[in-house]
């Protein structure tokens, strides 16, 4: 219960700084007024004054220039729920959605470079930069157009039915009413950043050692020396990739025995190197490094220069695919037989469809930008250009049931979708669990494919894994049209608030959930579509018996 406005007379400098506090932060963290911004500014100024760097801090905030001086101070814990000083600074002035310290890096000119173990930090918010995770680069899919791709897809009208009735071929899934449940514990976004920071920090260190120059873009300069050192890693990952499905099926996916609550699943942290951990990490790291390789060596021209170890087609086994880019180009130039389908990214990556039980409410909403908030408040949808926020409270439904209304009241801050490195993560910001059904995550974690994961408050999980998807797509592209078509369901994520469904719950299907939405990942879906287009219509589509 803080009183607004403040009793003490406000310093004009504080007010000037408060003007600089980001609008989005004021809305999502504060109360939407300048008073909150003033309060934050005052707290931070106190810290700065204590360490005699207020002038520098003021200067930095007002000018907004990385060339301003450093503001060394202790990384104190602020009163209230403001967290540590540096997080508060960054959230207020730079990055509204920052969650972890590992999401930022000090710029190279900062003399008090950030170190999570040190008490001293630089409070200058412009001495930090956002860690841009390199986009997960995936090789194009090669389609052999001479093959018969089998039966045409059964295109049902309702995508929901399709989801529940059919599933990927390689998994023998039980009937749709028997949807297993797990509870996700852990924080996969943090995992991602920590892992990246750990790896990248090393490289950066290497980089300093090698070149001793500050070019401000360590990403581009890290990989020169990596070529050979990852060769073994690559081999390893290739081998492990081959045995990955089998491994998961035999390992973690044993069904839960206790009926009352779904079993828990904790994604691995980055501190222990267990067997599976090693495999996962290595492969991912190698992937990342490789993508850097591409971007630095080929100026972003994506060419598959590393192999994933699988024969592309029955006709052209491994050797061809594993050969150089030149040969690959020849291959793709064989007119009409092989075609390369590359992954393309468009800025509109997410489409949200809001449902209450079986009814679709409102219209489909497209999202641009790298994160998207779905909350329970009632913001109007005015800013359609820069829309990154969807308030479910805004939607009216004439047929709303009381239970739905109740759940809608619980949503609060909702969930946030992130697009990080070309992959999609979900963060639960509200105080109730959300239930996520993502085939990509299930496949990656080795669950049954239609498993519903319970994501407790503050939890994050990865709902779409690009590498896994591209691998699946490549495999499917060698098989039938139907296989590829099924993969479109990997590009769909369902999130239900508060109420779960599946075998441990009363609801057998998501259509009974009071408040849920479906997120379509446009880019991978487009990829699937392109591959299907390349495959062409299967010949049997003309049969009169179809």
């Amino acid at each position, binding site marked *: *219960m*803080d*009183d*607004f406005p403040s009793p003490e007379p406000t310093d004009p400098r504080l007010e000037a700084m408060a003007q600089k506090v980001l609008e989005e932060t004021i*809305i*999502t*963290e*504060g*109360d*939407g*007024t300048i*008073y*909150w911004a003033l309060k934050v500014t005052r707290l931070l100024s106190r810290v700065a004054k204590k360490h005699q760097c207020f002038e520098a801090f003021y200067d930095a905030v007002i000018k907004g220039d990385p060339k301003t001086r450093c503001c060394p101070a202790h990384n104190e814990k602020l009163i209230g729920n403001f967290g540590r000083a540096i997080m508060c600074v960054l959230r207020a002035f730079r990055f509204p959605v920052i969650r972890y310290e590992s999401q930022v890096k000090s710029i190279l000119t900062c003399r008090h470079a950030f170190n999570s173990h040190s008490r001293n930090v630089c409070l200058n918010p412009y001495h930090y930069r956002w860690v841009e995770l390199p986009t997960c680069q995936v090789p194009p899919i090669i389609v052999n157009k001479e093959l018969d791709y089998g039966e045409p897809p059964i295109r049902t009208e309702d995508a929901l039915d399709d989801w529940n009735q059919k599933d990927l071929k390689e998994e023998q899934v039980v009937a749709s009413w028997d949807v297993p449940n797990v509870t996700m514990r852990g924080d996969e976004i943090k995992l991602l950043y920590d892992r990246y920071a750990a790896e990248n920090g090393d490289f950066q260190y290497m980089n300093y050692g090698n070149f001793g120059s500050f070019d401000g873009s360590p990403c581009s300069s890290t990989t020169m020396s990596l070529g050979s050192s990852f060769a073994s890693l690559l081999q390893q990952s290739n081998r492990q990739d081959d045995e990955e499905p089998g491994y998961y099926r035999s390992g973690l996916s044993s069904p839960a025995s206790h009926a009352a609550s779904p079993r828990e699943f904790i994604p691995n942290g980055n501190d222990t190197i267990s067997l599976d951990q090693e495999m996962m990490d290595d492969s991912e790291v190698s992937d990342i490094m490789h993508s850097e390789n591409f971007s630095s060596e080929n100026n972003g021209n994506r060419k598959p220069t590393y192999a994933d170890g699988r024969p592309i087609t029955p006709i052209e086994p491994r050797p061809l695919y594993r050969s150089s880019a030149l040969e690959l180009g020849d291959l793709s130039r064989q007119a009409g037989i092989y075609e390369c389908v590359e992954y393309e990214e468009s800025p509109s990556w997410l489409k949200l469809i809001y449902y209450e039980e079986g009814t679709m*409410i*409102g*219209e489909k909403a497209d999202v641009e930008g790298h994160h998207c908030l779905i909350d*329970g*408040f*009632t*913001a*109007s*949808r*005015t800013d*359609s250009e820069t829309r990154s926020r969807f*308030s479910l*409270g*805004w939607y*009216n439904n*004439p*047929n*709303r049931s009381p*239970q739905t*209304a*109740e759940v*809608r*009241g*619980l949503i*609060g*801050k909702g969930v946030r979708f992130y697009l990080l490195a070309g992959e999609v993560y979900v963060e639960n910001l509200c*105080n*109730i*669990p959300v*239930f996520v059904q993502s085939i990509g995550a299930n496949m990656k974690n080795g669950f049954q494919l239609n498993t519903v994961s*319970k994501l407790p408050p503050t939890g994050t999980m990865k709902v779409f894994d690009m590498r896994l998807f591209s691998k699946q797509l490549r495999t499917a592209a060698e098989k039938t049209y139907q296989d590829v078509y099924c993969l479109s369901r990997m590009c769909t994520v369902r999130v239900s608030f*508060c*109420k*779960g469904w599946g075998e441990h*719950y*009363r609801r057998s299907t998501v259509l009974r959930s009071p408040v849920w939405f479906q997120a379509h990942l446009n880019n991978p879906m487009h990829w699937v579509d392109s591959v299907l287009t390349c495959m062409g219509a299967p010949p049997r589509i003309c049969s009169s018996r179809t």
Partner: protein
Amino acid sequence: MGDHHNLTGLPGTSIPPQFNYSQPGTSTGGPLYGGKPSHGLEDIPDVEEYERNLLGAGAGFNLLNVGNMANEFKPIITLDTKPPRDANKSLAFNGGLKLITPKTEVPDEHTPMMSPVNTTTKILQRSGIKMEIPPYLDPDSQDDDPEDGVNYPDPDLFDTKNTNMTEYDLDVLKLGKPAVDEARKKIEVPDASAPPNKIVEYLMYYRTLKESELIQLNAYRTKRNRLSLNLVKNNIDREFDQKACESLVKKLKDKKNDLQNLIDVVLSKGTKYTGCITIPRTLDGRLQVHGRKGFPHVVYGKLWRFNEMTKNETRHVDHCKHAFEMKSDMVCVNPYHYEIVIGTMIVGQRDHDNRDMPPPHQRYHTPGRQDPVDDMSRFIPPASIRPPPMNMHTRPQPMPQQLPSVGATFAHPLPHQAPHNPGVSHPYSIAPQTHYPLNMNPIPQMPQMPQMPPPLHQGYGMNGPSCSSENNNPFHQNHHYNDISHPNHYSYDCGPNLYGFPTPYPDFHHPFNQQPHQPPQLSQNHTSQQGSHQPGHQGQVPNDPPISRPVLQPSTVTLDVFRRYCRQTFGNRFFEGESEQSGAIIRSSNKFIEEFDSPICGVTVVRPRMTDGEVLENIMPEDAPYHDICKFILRLTSESVTFSGEGPEVSDLNEKWGTIVYYEKNLQIGEKKCSRGNFHVDGGFICSENRYSLGLEPNPIREPVAFKVRKAIVDGIRFSYKKDGSVWLQNRMKYPVFVTSGYLDEQSGGLKKDKVHKVYGCASIKTFGFNVSKQIIRDALLSKQMATMYLQGKLTPMNYIYEKKTQEELRREATRTTDSLAKYCCVRVSFCKGFGEAYPERPSIHDCPVWIELKINIAYDFMDSICQYITNCFEPLGMEDFAKLGINVSDD
């Protein structure tokens, strides 16, 4: 003139609907157009069905229809630039549209497909005969009726309230479309040098039929099932019109130009000549015709343009140089220089609506046919109990208490029909008066409540002998204003009556009844006029019984007190621009019934409601219902509100300010964002930024009734987003729209929730006010947070109130959802079809065939900011808290 033929939507086929009474028997069978009972939408033509019949006959209809559409929307496109012209056109346009009603009804007795033979000659005969028929036909005469014993299909009757038609139109209707030329030829257009009687005859031919004439027509139609003008000829209104017309022609006979202009104006409905037509002003500005006095522009406006019009609801157009209000020596009587700008709405009491009566088919085709005299008496209410006609949009309907049989079905018991005087038929004229002397207060009249100037009343008085009772009773009138200064007596007076009311507080009146000694004490204490809001109340009252007023429950506070607590707890942020004291000191007059509501837990709000039958005019006391818009209200009764037609300036911001969602029944069909200040919703097919054309929204499973309503929308409605954040609605159709919004609920006073406001054609109404909605949303959300904090065991200023509340009440408060407040951010409009408790077949708007919902962004955003504030600045509720609140948070 030409456009209304297109507007009818009738195809110009070679087999026109024709009137033929010589072969009546043939018309009873077969797929008769219009023979199907309509569903309470009598005034909307069933063009649909007509088309279907025609298409069955292979008529080339579609192309013609397209042409019609093009014609229809010309005026719409050109509308928006000049508002006065705009209104003018739309009125003229609607006047043309009116013709649909009767015209499509004609064929139901003689479908062209049934009797295509020998119709033309008959018509000729008939029209020839018609001129010779004696002027009056007694519909009830039983002698030698050649049609005796013939069963006609049920006639569709004119909507006497809303039909604007001329004698010429009636002829056109009767003769059918191809005979239009004949009708026109019948009375040729004279020029100014023609003999005056020719001119008068011509001018009378184009006069607007009055309600009493339409009623006569209907009566005759009911009896004989045919159209007749002859009945109309000896109508008293017609005589008056005739005299007025003669008088005008006489006055203009020296000014041939003006006379010619008048003829042109009448013929072309004001389009051919737009200048003034003036007559000299009389001393008092009024005109004596046929023993009645009237204002010239009203008399002539009614003669040629509107079948109902009163001075107070009339505005002249901008380009009129000699308008009546300008007080120049000459008065302009060009009927197209005056517009009716005032809308009226009636709080949806279906009992007051003539639609409430069963549709004509049921009325007149009951198996055991009633005596015709009964039918007539039901149809034409006796003049003595008819309320004064107020304007063209609404005529206050015969009130239920005046028709005791209807009154029994009135939505809620009338407070004055208390057991102690059950026999009072005009309760408001007797019951309050008998109490006045007891409560006469020596305090002089409040300066801000000046007495009403009497001429305004006489303006209404000229419309007929049927004045309302209070106008005849100046004594009564005076006392309203004396009594305003004495706030408390009324609640004592009506206390026993209120006791019979269903209120949410069964124990509410107990203190009063158990302690009969209290009221005298209080009536001596004049400070208690502020009692209900208790400005000095400091919150330590838990032990004090609320002595100030018997109406306060011991465990509630007033809204002002609650808001002060909120300021203490949550800061001033959401109270910016509001003074600490709301200043709304309740001064009840006897015109209000105070009802007590508790919108939020532990807070009592006084919601004044107009006493049935009382009228407030021109000056609204601050505590009246609709106080937010009181400066725009001319007249207020318990059932109707008359707006002055003014409003704040339209916003010129060029961003999206709302979203309109279009529903049919409970199916969402489409949505569109509103931009620009004025946003139209119409039935057409235009893609435009400031227009949502419902015609563009397909629905494959559309119901027939929705087709009908969508056809009737045509010009639709207009939402105006004003600079103060309010949203006004103007109905540009002929048919009513039914509006409900949280704001109107709040403003209309009284307890009943989800009130439906019927907005008649051309009327406008404020449907959303940002400041009021903001307060409601804020109070509700802060109260929710307060209750939540109390349940979390924190200290709040409301604790002493909450301690007396049951756990259940507090839980309900703490689990209030934003969904329940969404209605304060929305305006819902149903086209043509009413809903609510007066319409049993459509209890809620979700049952209406065509309705829209306007969501207003600023309201949602304000609600959002409060939600964010509460979520971010207070301890969030966890799962356990939710569970404690009784919410089922289990993920079962």
